[in-house]
């Protein structure tokens, strides 16, 4: 039995594409045949659940019974990776709760692999959150994600300011998610299927779909780039150490 991995995907601000990142992560681990489960904290109805109904459970991460559901099962679940999509504004409170229940200590003692994907918005406000969350994460792998998927404005940060925040976190790594064509993005939303399924031209039931080949091509290309970023930061090795990461291709 490998050490369980918990990945928090969050931001203190809405609309920066947390769920998008969570979806690419689920697709990424599925492609590597790493057993995975996901929790969607947008209760009662979650977006993540809509795209990955098989592996996703909707929970209220502030409620104790649901915290038990997530963290007490870590030792028994088949899933090697647990992805938690944290609702807007709940990242800091969740980290606080994790600290209170001793989860962060367990991570420190190396019983659990813990990673945070912090999705950054295009405004300076989201940089200040880094300082807030930084004090919790300690030794955890901390990934700062610049999400350009539906990029309309440039990231308006002063590089010096950014660097000063960035340095507050040890082991912080940067991930850049490139832009995906709006129409391709929209079509996947409408289809309500994982990116990989869309690329394979299937619908939610696994039957052949009738998606535009051009849009599928754009999604495949984009997803390939996102996964290349995950490969670059050695995400697979973090989850299953010492195993040669398999060469694989998108769809």
């Amino acid at each position: 039995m490998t050490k369980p991995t918990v990945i928090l995907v969050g931001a203190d601000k809405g609309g920066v594409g947390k769920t998008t990142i969570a979806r690419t992560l689920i697709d990424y681990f599925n492609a590597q045949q790493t057993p995975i489960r996901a929790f969607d904290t947008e209760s009662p109805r979650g977006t993540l659940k809509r795209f990955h109904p098989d592996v996703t459970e909707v929970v209220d991460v502030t409620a104790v019974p649901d915290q038990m559901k997530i963290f007490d099962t870590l030792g028994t679940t088949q899933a090697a990776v647990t992805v938690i999509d944290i609702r807007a504004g709940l990242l800091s409170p969740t980290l606080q709760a994790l600290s209170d229940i001793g989860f962060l200590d367990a991570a420190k003692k190396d019983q659990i692999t813990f990673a945070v994907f912090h999705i950054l918005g295009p405004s300076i406000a989201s940089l200040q959150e880094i300082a807030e969350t930084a004090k919790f994460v300690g030794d955890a792998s901390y990934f700062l994600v610049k999400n350009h998927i539906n990029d309309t404005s440039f990231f308006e940060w002063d590089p010096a300011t950014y660097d000063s925040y960035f340095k507050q976190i040890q082991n912080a790594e940067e991930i850049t998610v490139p832009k995906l064509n709006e129409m391709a993005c929209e079509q996947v939303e409408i289809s309500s299927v994982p990116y990989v399924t869309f690329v394979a031209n299937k619908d939610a039931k696994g039957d052949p779909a009738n998606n535009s080949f051009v849009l599928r091509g754009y999604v495949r290309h984009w997803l390939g780039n996102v996964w290349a970023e995950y490969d670059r930061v050695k995400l697979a090795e973090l989850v299953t150490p010492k195993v040669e990461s398999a060469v694989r291709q998108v769809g």
Partner: protein
Amino acid sequence: MSFRHSVTIVASPRPRVGKTLVARLLTDFHAHEGRKVVAFDVNSGEGTLAQFLPEYTKVADLSDIGGQMAFFDRLVADDGATKIVDLGAETFEQFVTVASRIGFAEEARKRGIAPAMLFAIGPDRTSVEAYRGLHSRLPHVALLPLLNEMLGHAQHRDKYPIRGAEAPLVHIPALALGLRRYIDKPPFSFSQTRLAAATDIPLDVHLELQRWLRKIYLEFREMELRLMLADLQASIRLR
């Protein structure tokens, strides 16, 4: 895998090298062979394919995603048609970028469609470099260098290395001087019935055109056979 249909892209990064003429000839050739043909005009400006062969041609625009969908989705559609693309010099780069990004050739092959590019060769650096780049950018497209003899002889032949056994040079023989004006007024089709009915073409011109056309159709037939052979060889090697 044996291919049911083909997509042939007539291309060059240089304008005025006879791409549209080759696309017209190729479209009429396939129609002459009794196939269903759809041609795509990806050009801007005068004298384009859509004006010469309006009944076969659709105008395509690759500048936005809607146009790309209309074009590429149709190109790989299983509609039983042979497809010709007249790719203007100014859209060459855009086409190659999008096609390689979305995996056009791989998808076409998966659907039993053989993608080929007739590349009009020239002595200029732009063409030589674009041709070289195609080997890595569109590795699954059969690359066929095309020499338009109306532009002179092939002294630059060695600058265009061939990929695999499938593609010696395709020649477009020169048309006798003074005959160009008979075929350069759109709309115009090289189909036999159309030529026979054309009252403004004198008999001797008509005969010369037929002779020229026969040479070209022979070149096209040979090109098809070579592609088919390469495909067969590849499938034998796989087993």
